[in-house]
């Protein structure tokens, strides 16, 4: 009983960014809890392997927090254990922050079997970085991207748009530079002001002009245009890649592949057989109701969401539409009204036997997703 993807969460950061509401904690680089954390994950990995959960796991992802904040030694140990626990990995990604992604860390990751590095660049304008509460400079980002590319790793950079101080020009400038650095993958996220974050506290329910939805749309469109011109093609709402450089782990999330998350704040999605095995791994998992075919939980909430077969089906439709390639039209045969409505509203269009999101369907994805989730 095996999962298709493994996510390991590293909940430590040097500093919490002003927009971040994800489970992570700012701490010192010598925080002894990091060793304890490491031991726990390694023990979990061993048990997973013992239970036979990782045999067919194709992709692994070390996310954060800031995995590189663990330092070369700890990170190398963790990455190697992941690599050896999952004998059939075809893709192994690690998130990184420019301030802690040293040459040594890059070499360590490569030696441990990491194939892909996703760097939190966000912007190549120092003033914008400062406003986001990032602790690195644009130069640090440029340098580490170059090193990682040179080291032969698949390099992805995360960029943020609709952020303070950003202009259409500075955004284009950032995009051009990133393209010139030779990366094979880019993710573009408009900043979301989340409750409880410094931005959320500052703005409440108000939208500052820099985060206006028109600005978000314009920047996303600009990114799509410039990146496409450099053969970085959008394959998902926020993801762009050169041919063959798409992130298989990311695609797994949208295509109903069961995945296991380890570490606090990591999300898991399991089918019935893998859930039964996972109950030996996490003793807090409640028994599965007989009609539940998909289970979602995060270790942080210690709460399981049980989805029926019908719900899982509707969820797959919804998630499938995050991908540019959309879904096979036949999958909507059971709900012709929804299909026709989405076509009439111009949110999807037909393309070679598939229904694919239109430009509107991309930028107004929530309309599309909500309509499909309503089919449950």
């Amino acid at each position, binding site marked *: 009983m095996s999962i298709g993807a493994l*996510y390991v*969460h590293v909940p430590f950061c040097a500093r919490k960014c002003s927009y971040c509401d*994800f489970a992570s904690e700012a701490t010192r680089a010598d925080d002894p809890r990091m060793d304890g954390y490491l031991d726990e994950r390694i023990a979990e990995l061993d048990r997973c392997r013992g239970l036979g959960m990782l045999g067919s796991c194709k992709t692994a*992802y070390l*996310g954060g927090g800031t995995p590189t904040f663990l330092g070369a030694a700890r990170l190398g140990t963790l990455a190697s254990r992941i690599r050896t626990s999952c004998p059939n990995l075809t893709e192994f990604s690690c998130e990184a922050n420019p301030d802690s992604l040293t040459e040594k860390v890059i070499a360590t990751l490569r030696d441990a079997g990491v194939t892909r590095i996703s760097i939190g660049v966000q912007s190549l304008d120092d003033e914008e970085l400062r406003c986001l509460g990032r602790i690195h400079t644009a130069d640090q980002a440029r340098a580490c991207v170059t090193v990682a590319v040179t080291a032969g790793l698949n390099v992805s950079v995360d960029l943020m748009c609709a952020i303070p101080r950003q202009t259409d020009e500075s955004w284009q400038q950032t995009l051009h530079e990133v393209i010139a650095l030779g990366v094979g993958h880019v993710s*573009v*996220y*408009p900043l*979301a002001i989340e409750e409880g974050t410094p931005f959320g506290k500052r703005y409440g329910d108000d939208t500052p002009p820099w985060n206006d*939805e*028109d600005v*978000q*749309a*314009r920047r*996303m469109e600009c990114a799509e245009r410039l990146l496409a011109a450099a053969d970085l093609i959008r394959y998902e*709402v*926020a993801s762009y890649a050169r041919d063959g450089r798409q992130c298989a782990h*990311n695609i797994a*999330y949208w295509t109903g592949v069961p*995945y296991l*998350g380890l570490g606090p*704040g*990591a*999300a*898991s*999605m399991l089918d019935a057989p893998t859930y039964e095995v996972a109950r030996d791994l996490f003793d807090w998992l409640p028994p599965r109701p007989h009609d539940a075919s998909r289970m*979602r939980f*995060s270790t942080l909430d210690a709460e399981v*969401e049980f989805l029926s077969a019908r719900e899982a089906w509707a*969820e797959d439709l*919804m*998630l499938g539409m995050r991908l540019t390639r959309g879904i096979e039209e036949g999958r909507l045969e059971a709900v012709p009204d929804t299909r026709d409505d989405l076509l009439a*509203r111009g*949110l999807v269009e037909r393309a070679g036997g598939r229904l694919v999101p239109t430009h*509107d369907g*991309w*930028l*107004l*994805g*929530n*309309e599309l*997703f*909500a309509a499909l*989730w*309503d089919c449950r």
Partner: protein
Amino acid sequence: MNTQTDTSLIRNFSIVAHIDHGKSTISDRILELTHTVEQRDLYKQMLDSMDIEQERGITIKSNAVRVLYDADDGKQYQFNLIDTPGHVDFTYEVSRSLAACEGAVLVVDATQGVEAQTVSNALLAMNADLEIVPAINKIDLPSAEPEQVRAEIEEVLAIPADDAVCVSGKTGEGIHDLLESIVYLIPPPTGDASAPLKALILDSYFDAYRGVVAMVRIFDGSIRAGDRLLMMAEGQPFLAEEVGVKRPLEQPLPQLGMGEVGYLVTGLKDPALVKTGDTITGESRRCVEPCPGYHEAKPMVFTGIFPVDNKYYENLRDALEKLKVNDPSLTWTPETSVALGFGFRVGFLGLLHMEVVKERLEREFDLDLIATSPSVDYHVYLTDGQMIEVTSPQDLPVPEKIERIEEPYLKATVIVPPDYVGAVMQLLVDHRGTSTDMVYLSEKSVEMHFDIPLAELILDFFDQLKSRTKGYASLDYEFSDYAPSPLVKLDILLAGEEVDALSFIVHRDKAYQLGRGLCDKLKEIIPRQQFEVPIQGAIGNKIISRSTVKAHRKDVLAKCYGGDITRKRKLLEKQKEGKKRMKSIGRVDVPQEAFLAVLKVDDE
């Protein structure tokens, strides 16, 4: 057996005040000082038993509580404390309560002085021939100016204020003196204990087990449980099932005697038969004349009330019927709207009444409701000589069939410091008001009298008055008469479709301004949709204003935190929940508050 209380020991009185001057806290203190309610049992403002009354600090229903006061002269007096509604919407109810009294305690805030409802309530009390005991409240506050207020009471109200008692409802200071003043200043009731029964209904409420319970004041005769009685105006006979007094919980008594105030269980199941202001007499031994002043409460303001989801239409009807049981002034007729489906056109005594009822419907009956713009009762004279009453813009006939339209006018009074006279004058001009006269009450206050169409007053007049006078102005009004006005129907089109529920009857000269204001306000209220939504204002076929809600450009959650789909889906479901509270009109999702946008149009 004669159980008639010595009437020389009875004092029936009301406490009247401008809103927030502390009427309820003084009532609470009196209950406490006479040990009617022990302090530990006393929750704030005991007499206001409805949630909304407590929350808003306003009294909606009348109530009468008996307290026994051991006076300094060694005798025990029976005080019947009649609490009255405290808002201009409920003037009739106030007048009926006052008719049950011999005296009134006029509470004036020592920091605010005489305000509009101080004057109107004092006048009501004087018209009812009541002995007035002025009480200057909140003397514990540092900003209290009791001497100034005393002078104002004498000057403005021509009430000798030497006897005015200085009190603090908060600390209890002066309450004992107030009780002594009540004993000495307010006369005992007079009447004929052996004459046929004559009792006034002050108010009533519905009890699921016992039917309608009336609060009554006995002028002549007495009521014993088991008596066969008659509602004079209604012509309805009934049996007195129980009589008693509230202290403040009900305490049954063998009889209510001449001069007393108490409750009467009528056993009647239909609240419409028990009308405030009606007279109760014996079924066989009847009094000659009923108590004067009875008339049916007439609704002043009308709005459409619709369930957001039409399947709750019957629930809304049931809820209205349940509310009417304790609020007989509520009236309604079914109304159908193309945009909103089935609902009711509901008549209210005023805007506050409307707000309170809508809130109770939503809260107590768990309904999601849309209220449409308030309207008044227009008298529309047709070219064929017929007159029809129109309370809903959609019922207005086409202009060709209309000879003229008359609208209700009010006589209104504003009391304001002299500095703000100019601002109030401007507001009157903006709202088609005409000043009739102006009196300087003192150096600090001017009383302005004016005529104004009710339709103007029910929009944002009161809020504007408050904001333009920095909260200093107070307002009071009464219906005066109908007068003709050049009125037109302003229609609103969303995405090219006329939305009947957004139509509004307006003075011709104000139509353009309001049309513009409404289009702009609706643009703020209606969220962006997948398509651009033009909003147009029109009179007949002529478009007079427009605005546009831009198309939604971006609505997608881009970031995925380590595959946390649950969180994404929850956000989608939250968005959908928000949409469910909106009304789909054609392809446009319209929030509930859009239908009351006219109340929020800033006409500056």
